[in-house]
Structures are given as C-alpha cells and as structure tokens.
C-alpha cells in the first residue's frame, strides 16, 4: 500500500507546489504612445561633440527605435547665447542624430534646448545649471564567479568582470549628484593567414562591447562626508572571448542636477524589478523636456547638462585579480576542412564582427 501511495502522493504534491505559473504576455497590440518624442542627449563641460538623439518608442524586443529627422534643434544659455545642432546621418550604422560641436559648457550657467519638429510641434527642456566637475580617482576591474540557480534548479556558476569607479567626495558635497556610464572596447586579432600564398597583414579590430547588464549607477553626495571614499559598481560583463586579448573600459563620471538624479533613479527602478507581487508598481517616466504645443504630451527621455570626468582601465584574461585564474581558450583555430580554413569566418576577417572597426578609439592607449 505504502509503495503505491507514496508515488501518487508525490505527484499530487508536485502539482500543488508548481501551481504558480509565469507566462509571457504581449501588450504590443496596445501600442499606445508610439508618437511620443524621445529626447536623449547630454551637454557637457567638455569640447564635444555633444550628441542628441530624437526617436520614437518602438518594439522593445527589436530595440529598433525610429529616429526623427528634419528637426531644428538649438541650445541656449542664460547669457542669451544660442547654438544650432547639425543633423548627422551616420553611414556606419545608418542612425540619425543631432550634433553640436565646438561649444563647451561653463559651470554655473543654465542651458536648455529647443526642438522644432517638421510638423510644427515645439519642445523645450527645463533649464539646467552646469554643475561643478567632480574628479574621478580611478577605475578598476575585478572578476568573480556569479552563482545563480536556473529554472531547472541547477546551480550555475559563471565568471563575471565587475567594473568599479573610485571617487573621493569633494569638500563641498551639498547639491552634488553623480551618475556613471561606461563603455568597453576589445581587441580581436585575426589568425595568421598562412593558407594564402602571400599572407596579407593580420588585422586587429576594435569592437565595442556592450556591458551586458543595464544598470544606472548613481550617488547622492549629500549623504557623504567630505573626503569620503566612494566605490561604485558601474558595469558588469560576463567573461567571454572578448577578454582573450585586451579589453578596455572607459568610465564617464557625470556631475548632474538633482532633477536629473531623480530621473535616473526612476529609470534604475524601472529596469531592475524583482518580479514578485510585492514590486512597487512601475510607471512611465517623464524627463525635463516639455511639449509647448500640447502640454499633455511631454517628451520622454532627458536632456542632461553634466560636468564630466573620465577614467579608463585595460585588462585581459588572467589579469583580473590575484585569485582569479580563469583562462579563456583561444577563439580562433585553423580548420582545414573548409575555406577559408578557419573555425569562424571572423577569424579570417574581423570586420565581419558587429560594430567592428580598424580605428583605435581616441581614449585607447
């Protein structure tokens, strides 16, 4: 009896335990707000170029957000100066953006942009004061294994590189807010083309490497004592073949306004929910760009006025820390069964990689 009862009971219990169910749901049919303007741009105390993107919301899976051409964009300050942006069509990635060159923000001045769309709608950002720059001390990369449990209940251990910014809190912390963003570029070396009668030069490509987890690192310096050491994780990247040769990280540390800080704080909450029924209900986030034609339809996104300092760090596999000995196997090998005799086509031509270029980034050493 017991032998028969227990399996039956177990089946029943398994049914009960797995009663909770998660399914993907699609609200794309409710695709409201597609005509909303998205403004994303920064104006800094650096020489530029200062980039502004105007797009429309789109399918989030494809991440193809339609650019808005033909707009007249201008920047003005509280001194009565006015500068016009140029519309640029990037040939490399066929994106469209607006660019302002040869203008450098001055701390203490207020800046705002005005956008006139071809259909006559006018948008204007609320004025933002250029903050004082806060210097970044250094950036560092540290590698760790990240342990997680997948849906099957199996423990998964994956190596990750974590990028940290080190900053010393300035003497005057009141009203200071920081935001960081980072970019990564890695080197990809083609194989030596010994299969050519006259081997061409072996190319070295530079490939932008997206930091896999989106996060919005922020700091409110008001809560720190002057001189306090602030260490902030500003990026995270799974260690893969991009670490085989050399990878560089550039970190921008932006001093921003309180309004910008609060905006990015909301964005941070929005992109990192826990997925439980106890989540704070999310909401649409509006930035600082108002629609003067129809005030009930403000723009999404933010026009940020920030003072930027940058720092960079380079690393490679095996140099990620004293106790981290992971070695990534070479990605490219010869494969004489096909032509060209390499195991991956990009090993023969590294420009095949998405975003690849032979041009070394300006910040590369």
């Amino acid at each position: 009896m017991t032998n028969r009862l227990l399996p039956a009971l177990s089946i029943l219990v398994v049914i009960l335990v797995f009663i909770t169910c998660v399914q993907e749901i699609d609200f794309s049919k409710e695709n409201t707000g597609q005509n909303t303007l998205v403004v994303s741009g920064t104006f800094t105390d650096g020489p530029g170029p200062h980039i502004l993107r105007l797009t429309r919301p789109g399918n989030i899976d494809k991440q193809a957000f339609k650019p808005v051409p033909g707009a007249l964009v201008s920047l003005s300050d509280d001194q009565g100066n006015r500068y016009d942006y140029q519309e640029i069509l990037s040939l490399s990635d066929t994106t469209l953006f607006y660019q302002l060159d040869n203008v450098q923000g001055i701390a203490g001045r207020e800046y705002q942009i005005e956008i006139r769309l071809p259909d006559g709608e006018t948008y204007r950002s609320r004025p933002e004061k250029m903050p004082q720059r806060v210097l970044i001390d250094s950036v560092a990369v540290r590698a760790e294994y990240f342990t997680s449990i997948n849906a099957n209940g199996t423990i998964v251990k994956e190596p990750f590189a974590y990028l940290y910014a080190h900053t010393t809190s300035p003497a005057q912390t009141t009203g200071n807010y920081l935001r960081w963003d980072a970019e990564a570029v890695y080197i990809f070396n083609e194989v030596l083309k010994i299969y050519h009668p006259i081997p061409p030069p072996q190319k070295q490509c530079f490939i932008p490497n997206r930091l896999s987890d989106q996060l919005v690192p922020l700091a409110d310096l008001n809560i720190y004592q002057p001189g306090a050491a602030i260490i902030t994780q500003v990026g995270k990247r799974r260690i893969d073949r991009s670490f085989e040769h050399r990878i560089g990280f550039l970190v921008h540390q932006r001093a921003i306004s309180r309004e910008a800080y609060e905006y990015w704080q909301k964005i941070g909450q929005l992109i990192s929910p826990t997925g439980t029924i106890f989540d704070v209900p999310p909401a649409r986030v509006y930035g600082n760009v108002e629609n003067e034609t129809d005030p009930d339809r403000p723009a999404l996104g933010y026009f940020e006025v920030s003072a930027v300092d940058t720092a960079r760090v380079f690393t490679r596999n095996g140099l990620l820390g004293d106790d981290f000995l992971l070695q990534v196997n070479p990605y490219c090998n010869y494969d004489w069964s096909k032509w060209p005799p390499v195991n991956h086509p990009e090993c023969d031509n590294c420009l095949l990689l998405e975003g690849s270029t032979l041009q070394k980034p300006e910040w590369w050493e």
Partner: protein
Amino acid sequence: MNLSIPKAVQNVLLGCCCFFFLLRPASAQPIFDLEISGDYRNATIIEMFLDLEQRYPVKFYYDPDILPYYKVGFDCQGRRLFNLLQTLLPPHNLTFAAARDNGVVICRKVDLNGEYVRNLLQKWDDNKIELPEFLTPLKLERQTGMPPTSSAATVLVEGVIKDEKTQDPVPGATIRTDTAGGVTTDRLGRFRLTLKPGEHLLKIQYLGYRETEVRLLVYQAGTIEILMQTRALELAAVEIQGNKAANKQTAVATGVELLSTQTIKDLPSFMGESDVVKSLLILPGVSTVGEGASGFNVRGGNIDQNLVVQDELPFYNTSHVLGFFSVFNPDLVRSTTLYKGHIPARFGGRVASVLDVKLRDGNFSEWHGSAGAGLAAAKASVEGPVWKEKLSVLAGARMSYSDWMLKLAKLPDVKQSSAWFNDVNAKISLRSGKNGTISAGGHRSEDYFRFAQEFGYQWKTTGANISWRQTWGESVLTSLTATSGQLQNTYFQPEGAGAFDLSNGLSFYTVNAQASWLSLANHEIQIGGQWNRTNVLPQQLRPRGGDSDILPKTIQQENGAEWAAFADDEFKISEKITLYGGLRYSHFRTAGPGNVRLYEPGVPFSDYTVTDTLVFGDNETSQTYGGLEPRVSLNVRLADQHAIKFSYNRLRQYQHLISNTTAATPSDTWQVSNRYLRPQVSDSYAAGWFFTKENKRWENSVEVYYRHTDDVPAYEDFASLLLNDHLETELIAGQQRSYGAEFLFRKNEGRWTGWASYTWSRSFQQARSQYPALSVNRGAWFPANFDQPHQAILFAKYAINPALYWTFNFTYRTGRPVTAPVNGYQTGSVVVPNYSDRNNLRIPDYHRLDAGLTIDKTRSKLAGLKWTINLSVYNLYARKNPFSVYFKRDRTGRPKAYQLAVIGSVIPAANLVFYW
C-alpha cells in the same frame, strides 16, 4: 439421529428466513392497495410519510439520511400507495417492500436484505431513529383572549418569539399569516399583527430554527409567546443564525448580505479549507485583485475602507498566509453580515463597508467538539457548559502544516521555503440573571512565510473583548463592550550581511456603549457612544543576526483617538413604509509623539523644501478633525413580494493603509490622519428593488449604487513608502468614485439551490496635485486597481439527499487594470520599457470553476460517530488566471513582460472533520 448443519449454512438459512419473514412481495400486499389522496406539492417525502401515517393505517420504516429532502411536488388523488411509491422512489435508487402488518420499508436497492431490514426495524422499535425535525414544522396552538369573540373588525395581537432553550429573544424572525401578510420581529424578538377575530395560521421561520406553525385563535386583543426550537440535528454543522437586516424584503437597509456558515462550508475552496472572507467573493459587489491577495474590495472601495469586526473586536489584518485563507474560524462563526450599502449609524471609521462577524456562544447544556484535517491545515474546536445553563465556553484552533509540501519540491528555493499559520479563538459566556449576558473572548493568530534565504514575512494579531448585554424591562436593551488588541508585522531578510527585520504594527483600545429602546409604537431607537485609541507602532529596521551590517533605524508614527456619538431610529411609518434615520458625529485627534514638518509654500513637499519642524510630545494634540455622518434609508413595500429601497450614507475614515503594491502586504503600514493626511469622507447612494416569489423560494434583487470619496491617499509615481517619516512627500490627496448595478437571482429550495449574480461596476481614482508634474496620469481620472467592470457568479448546490450533495461555483471577472510596458525607448545607453498610463491596460479576464462533494454524516442517526468529508477541486479547468504583470529581462538581456498566475493548476483537496 443428529443432523449437523454447518455454521455458515445456518447463517444463510437464518438470514433468508428472516428476510422472507420480515418482507413480503410488495405488489401482493394489501397495504399497497391503499387508495390515498393528498396535496404534497410543497412537501418533502418525509413530510408526506408523516401525513400518510396520520391519515391511513400505514407505517413507514426508513433511514432519514437516505431520503431526498427537497420538495417532491406531487399532487395525488385516489392513487394506490404502490403506484405512488413506484413513481417517487426509483429515481433516487430507492426501493420499498412491505414489512410486518401494515409497514413499508424504504431503503436503497443494494440494502434490501434481511440484516439491513432487521437492524432498521430494531432501531425504530428502540426509538433510535430520530426524524429530521427541520423538515417538519413544529405545530403549536395559541389563543388571545377568551370567548366570546370580539366584535371589532380587527384586533391587535402582540407577541414575542424566544429560543426554547435559552429563552433569548429571536430577532429577525419572519411571521407570515394566512390573511394579513408578514412581519419581522424586532431586536427583542417582538412583533405585532392586526388580525380579524377568528382562526389564523402563523408560519414562523428563522435560519437555524425549526419552522414553527401556530394555530392562533383570536378572540380579543392580546399577547402570545412562541418558543422556537433550534435545529437539533444541525448543532454540529452550525447553521447560520439570521439577521433581521439581511431579510431582503422587510429589512429597511439596502446592500446587506448575510452569508450562511453552511454556505461557507459548502463552497469548494482552495486546499479544502472553507473560508469566511473568500466566500464573500461569491456575493455581488465583492471582489479581489486576485488569488493570494489579502482583503477584499466592496463596491469599488479599497481594502482598508472595510471595517472588519469579530464580536466588535476590530481586525486590521484579515488574511492568513499571503491572503489564501482568512483569520476567521468558520467552525466558531455564528453569523457573517456584510453591510455594503446602507451602514447603520452604530458603525463608523471606514468609508466602504462593514463586515460584522459574530461568534456563537458555547453550548450551555452539553459538551461537543470537532476535529478535522485537510491537506494544508488541521483544526479542532470544543464547547460546553462549565456551569450548566449558566456558563459556557467555546474554543477553537487551527494550525497549518504545509511545509511538508514545500519540502517535496524540486526547486531548491521552494524546498528551502516555509509557510505556516495558526489561530486560536476562545469565548466564555455567562448568563447573568434572567435578561443579561456577559461574554469575554480572545483571538490570536500568527503567520510566517519565508522564501528560501531571500526574504520572509511574519505577522501576528492578538485581541480580546469583553461584553455585557442586558435587557431592562420590556423595551430597553443595553450593551457595553471593551476591546483591546495588537497587530505586529515583520518583513525580514534572513541571512547574510544584509539580514534585517523591518517591523510595524499598531495597538488599539475601544469602548462601545449602546442602548436600544424598542417601542411598540413602530419605533426602534438606538443611541450610543464609542471611543477608540490607536497607537501606531514605530517602523523599526533592525539588524538580524550577528553578521548583519544593517544600521538600525526607527520611524516614529503618530497616534490617534476617536470618539463618536450616534442616534438612530427605525420608524415603521405604515405597514408598507419603513424609514431609517441616523446621525453620527465623530471626532478625531492626532496625538504625539511626532514631528511635523512645515514646507515652503508654493513648491512641492520634499526634503529640500522643509522650513521648520514642529515637535509634539507624548499624547500632545497635533491635529483634530470631525464631522457629522448622516445615514438615511427607506423601504417601501409595493406588494407583499416587492420592495424598493433607497439609502444614503456619509462616512469618515481616520485610519489609512499606506500601500503602493498590487496586493496588500504585511509591510504596508497603517497611518492615522494627521496634518497632511486628511480623513477620507464618502457619500454613498444606493437604491434597490427586491422581489420574492413562491414564499421565498425565489429571491431576486437589483441594486444600483454611487459613491464619491474625498481625500483618498494616492501615491505618486515611484513613491518610496518604506521607512519614510514624511509620507506627505510621496502622497497626494486623491478622489475616488465608484458606481454600479448588481443583479441577483437566488433559489432557496429544491434539489438545486444557489444563486446567479451579475455585477456591473466601475471604480475610478483621481490624483491631481497642485503641482502638475506630480499628478498621476496628468490629473485625469483613471481606473482603480480593482476596477473590474463585469463580474458574474454562479453558485449551485445539488442535493442528492441531506447527507450527500454537490456544490459548484463559477466566477467570472473582467481582468483588472494594470500598468504595463507597451513599447520601449532608449535614454542614454539604457533601453527602457515605456509603461502605459497608470492602470490603462488590463490583464486577461479571470474565470474559474470549482466543484465540491460533501458527505455530511453529522445528520446521521444510525451511526455513533458524526463526520463530514469535503472533496473539492479548485480551478477545475486549470485556468492560469493572471494576477500581475511585471517586467523582466530574458536570457538575451532583452526586457519582456510576463504575467504571473498565482494558481495555474487544478487544486484537488480533501478535508475530513469529526464531531462528537
């Protein structure tokens, strides 16, 4: 010569002999040739047998448990008994045979054997068979005055109805006459009828009591006393006691729902655990945001807008284990009344509804008990006289043991999780003198939920009450009740450097004093006063364990005290018109300790705009509010079976549950009104039409309502409410309006009973700030979280016989509003989901079918042990009803929307309870 017959063969022969001796072929017996006549269209089979036994030389032998007890609907004139039984019984798998001289045995076909019949006859001979009294009216005779008959055209007959055992008045009983319509008893069990001199038949009905028929001879004006018997057979099963307010036709109030405890137990339920609050969801106008959500929404109100009391003890948390079960123990509950429309002036403090749960008194004459177990929980109760007929006790406890199921799971997180609850209720009742009762009770419940080593909740409710009720003379009823209790919630992270306990809660004290003057001049007047004190416990963040790096933090909360006085009168203007008028005045005082910030005028409240902070000491008044709360209700009976009603209420609420989660969680905090958090004030209007048919066999009603509430706290987008000592920076004083129509069709008798209801309702909120950037949805009205325009309920009970019945429950609700990502955009380097306006989209509709089978052996008179077993299947067709929508990155890192169905499978369950 000795003949040796084997023992087994002896038994067989003996059995056969007895069988043929006891039973004779049916068709050949003269008893079956009896020609009988009678109108049994409105009688049960047992009633028909009893009647036949009185009028014809026939005796029926049967087990009452196996006979159907619905009306047989049969009118026979001059038919043979054989033909009658042949028509009636086979459809129920029953058969019959002659026994003894003029006897007829009724039994199941499979039971027609010598041993069964011998046992059955023996039990009848030994008087061990008790007829189900509730099927047969108690017949009494009364007279007023002495002959000769009065010469007046009509005379006034006054009466009182009391419980036969306890001598307590029975309020709310219905008295119907054959000539002068019907009336209902008042709170002292009294009624008055204007009758013509002569003979009248009074039929008296009251839930939980045996129907009583009184043959009344009226000679002159006078008074009568009628004693009603409780349904003895149902003591263990606890039939609900009725409530005058719930009499749809005669009660003055609109929107009052009474849910029978039997119905609560009959309903197919999650994990087989019958539940008071979940059962409310089958009533029109009551809804929830989803499975696993605490509380309930009434006519478009928030869950904190419901006043929930058990014997006048307020309950701030009504849920066990994340909302799957409620804290009320159905085994101890006497009545459950939900006031969703008209709310009498004696209730206050919440703006949407009142759920009034009454525990029964313990048995004053005998000890009884019960014990039961289901898949998730076990329970036990005991009651009896400590001092016979003077002092009784009632106690019940429930305890869950669901961890064993979690341990069997494959997922490590589930395996390491834990969830349990327990609750205890006790009540002691003392009869003080002839007309007084003193009772005291206590409640304690505790819950624990931990998800792996990630997070957990623990919450505890304790409360006690003491009450003295006294009847003075003929017309005055007083009651004095004091209660005290505490609610403690803790959210915790169990392990690691970030381990912490975050706790909140409140404690309270209340005193209620009421006096009712029940004048026979058509008035029921009630006055009273109430006082309560609420101490909101500080929100505290504490490190948990020695390894925690968490810094402790305490947020001091303000306290409050409220007093109220009320008076009301239910005035029966005429036989057709009853008017209720009530007035309540409530006053609230916010008391320290607490700090109140002052802000720069003309700019949004924030940490950056504080100009000063006022410090208030212990019990120092920092704010006061108050106001009148008029209540009016009118009942106009158009004809005996039709009534229309209107009601208007104004209510004020000084305590608010501050939450911005989809479902209420234990980390939500209760706040009293203060300088910035103004009291909610609602104005409710309701009208209804009520129609009964065939002596209440059918009840139909249509009700419409509209409610507007001011100063409902609404949270701003991305509000941070936890550990926040300046909530005014996160909240907006919003408005709420709800309206709808409810249709109910109910069948109370027959093989099929139950109801079908449809509710159309809307509930909207507006959160408009004087600073447009803070307004939600730019200040426009938007659907509330629980706005579900269409709701349809079908509840049906199919009784095969009194001890065996099926129940079915089908629920349909429009999917509730959600705020969900409709597309995305890029800002900076971040791809962001673009959410709709708040509550602008809806999750798919909710629907679910449940079925249950109950074998109820508490009615059995043949077995010594009484028990019930309830087998149920929840969510029969495994609908994955979505609860919430959230946003998560998939394996490629791209953001996607997911819907969470809390229950996505069929949930079978079994629950066995023994009674003694």
